[in-house]
């Protein structure tokens, strides 16, 4: 499976040991998230709920393409962005 770069928003870096960028392998977003979960336990559930929906204040981008369902395939994008949508107070 192709290795991708995953850019990690700051609220999730407690799982990656502070790393802003990590590598993950997968051809779909779901596979990438599974690889992240294997290496950083607990991280996936903070972004994806138990029905496999992206949580309300989380956004995922494959390159510049917004991901709406984790079943979507990664195309040629080398980077998956994990974004915490700016909101709240």
């Amino acid at each position, binding site marked *: 499976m192709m290795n991708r770069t995953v850019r990690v*928003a700051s*609220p*999730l870096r407690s799982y990656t040991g502070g790393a802003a960028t990590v590598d993950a392998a997968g051809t779909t977003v779901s596979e990438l998230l599974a690889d992240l979960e294997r290496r950083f*336990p*607990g991280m996936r*559930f*903070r*972004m*994806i*709920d*138990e*029905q496999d*929906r992206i*949580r309300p*204040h*989380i956004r995922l981008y494959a390159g510049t393409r917004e991901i709406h369902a984790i079943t979507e395939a990664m195309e040629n994008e080398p980077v998956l962005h994990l974004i*915490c*949508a700016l*909101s*709240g107070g």
Partner: protein
Amino acid sequence: MAELLWIGTRKGLFALRPDARRRTYRVSAPQFLGHTVHHVVQDPRDPKTLLMAAKTGHLGPTVFRSVDRGRSWKEASRPPAFRKAVDCEKARAVARVFWLTPGHRSEPGAWYAGTAPAGLFRSVDAGDSWEPVAGFNDHPMNPKWAAGLATPDGEFLHSILVDPRDARHLYIAISIGGVFESNDGGKDWTPINHGVEANFLPDDSAEFGHDPHRVEMHPVQPDRLYQQNHCGIYRLDRPARTWVRIGKAMPKTVGDIGFPIVLHPTDPDVAWVVPMDGTTVWPRTSVNGKPAIFQTRNGGRSWRRLARGLPPKDAWLTVLRQAMCRDARENPGLYFGTTAGEVWAGANGGEVWRRIAQHLPEIYSVTFAL
């Protein structure tokens, strides 16, 4: 071991530690700064263990565990989560873990969690992994009992009560949904709301759909329950099934609306409430800007106003349902936190009050620990 208060806030966790004579309290540095902390509870069976229900504004809900009295924390390996939806059923997802209750003393490591939307979960490994309580979450009546008639802050399952005489005898409460009882360890449930008013429903004699704000079981007389409800203060002495509105004995100018209710550690006739304005659009602030705690010493037949030391006027405090507790003394100290970030302590059963912390974030939970 020294006593302390755990303060769960909208922006993190704080500890308040008194000096030896409880004259001054020291506020700790925040832990989990930026996390929304709904509840922090010590395990009475293993006091080194604490569980904390938390999330952040952006990240999903979880539970953190400490086995060293709160010095370090580790996230649950499997936080509370509903089972995957099948076919056309509603796909529920936990938005918040709202409530934590240790299980029966005969079941070390057992805990219950209540969530928003209303769900009941159980752990048998001291909070590391959680399973849905299918008897409630998948009960055929669940879609009606937990119908999503949410309060402005959501629909919560809270006040999970375990009968100290029988691990299989449980009560839970839902805002909005009512109080429910199980006699078989959570396999089946029955609403128990008769006598409780629900003047916001089209049928105020409905079997369920009520809004309990907090329900408490007396620790040494577990057949006695007290309830602070959206529609008043109630008492229920089992095996009776009809709640009695003891809040009718409160002064009419004050009313009997609020969120918390706290019971005496040994005397089942003694309880404390924090009246808040429940008129018009339900401001939920101190009645007329004059904060007071009210105490009953006779099971609710009469109430005493306790306000010495509290601001005499122009103070519009809101105290949420988990934000009041007592310590374990025979004449207990009482403690409450406000949404404006103040913590107040009332010595000798609330006879004299003083502010012991201020400038904290919005307070959701105040719990006593040893």
